């Protein structure tokens, strides 16, 4: 696991975070459900909580689907390629490429489409960035940078859990049976790590 330079994180005392969709149009209950489940996976292993807000202007995290250039200097590239990006804390910006074939509520493995991308898998990964995790070389981890089409990968692995619990500690109600976090970083670069796209 890895962190952004300086190991930015949401400040202690501000662990109850809100998120909102921007813009709201075309965001169905099924899509909201996908993101709620994705946030819940991180909440189960940390003291963080996530609540849906209807006000993008005041929410800690804003989620948006965009095509091409969308104002942050990191334009999306159409079908496949770059799927999404998110910014380190406390930015809260979470952008997804609207051009992708996002599978919302079905078994993506059953798809015959070579372009089908599981929305929840990407959401879980990007939330890791929003909370302060960089990319990991552990292929099984959520924070591995690449994902193949028609693949569902949503379960946090020990590498992810150790990283996020280094930043925030464990969920005081228990870590949902996850592996025990290490007492410190396993990486040996001695510094902080990876970097966001901006």
């Amino acid at each position, binding site marked *: *696991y*890895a*962190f952004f*330079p300086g190991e930015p994180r949401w400040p202690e005392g501000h662990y109850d975070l809100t998120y909102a969709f921007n813009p709201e149009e075309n965001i*169905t209950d099924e*899509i909201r459900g996908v993101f709620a489940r994705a946030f819940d996976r991180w909440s189960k292993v940390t003291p963080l909580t996530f609540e849906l807000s209807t006000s993008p202007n005041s929410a800690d995290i804003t989620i948006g689907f965009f095509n091409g250039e969308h104002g942050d200097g990191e334009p*999306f*590239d*159409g*079908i*496949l*390629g*770059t*799927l*999404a*990006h*998110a910014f380190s804390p406390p930015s809260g910006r979470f952008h997804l490429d*609207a*051009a*992708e*074939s*996002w*599978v*919302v*509520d*079905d*078994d*993506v493995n*059953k*798809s*015959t*489409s*070579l*372009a*089908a*991308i599981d*929305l929840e898998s*990407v959401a879980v*990964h*990007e939330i890791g*960035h929003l909370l302060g995790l*960089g*990319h*990991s*070389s552990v*292929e099984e981890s959520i924070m591995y*940078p*690449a*994902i*193949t089409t028609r693949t569902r990968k949503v379960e946090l692995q020990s590498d992810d859990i150790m990283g996020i619990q280094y930043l925030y500690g464990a969920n005081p109600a228990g870590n949902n049976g996850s592996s025990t976090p290490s007492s410190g970083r396993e*990486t*040996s*670069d001695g*510094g*902080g*790590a*990876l*970097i*966001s*796209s901006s």
Partner: protein
Amino acid sequence: HFFTNVSSIPPWLNATGSNWESFHNLSGHHFGQRVDGLNRLKSYLHYFGYINGTSNFTDDFDDALKSAVETYQKNFNLNVTGSLDNHTVQQIIKPRCGVADIVNGTSAMNSGKSNATSSFLSIVAR
């Protein structure tokens, strides 16, 4: 495009390839060659933090590209050959997150780990 049923994804979406599909043509190439399209691969590697500099990349398979490919191969657990073997190209064209792997030469992925750590893990493995 949102799909609640995977069978509803229209075939025309399959027909539209990724921008990165053209990297298939670079498979098998190595240091010292000049190949059309290498400038685009350099831009890709620059975007994700593997090559410093700004723009005007050439089609030369130069030292900078070889080093970037080696670092990429370390980070993605590939054989470190420095050349564009098939496994490396297959990895490069996979869909991925747009957040960079490396900035300012710093990475906590495999390439940022010390040799001491690698040696230790190797000993444990044996």
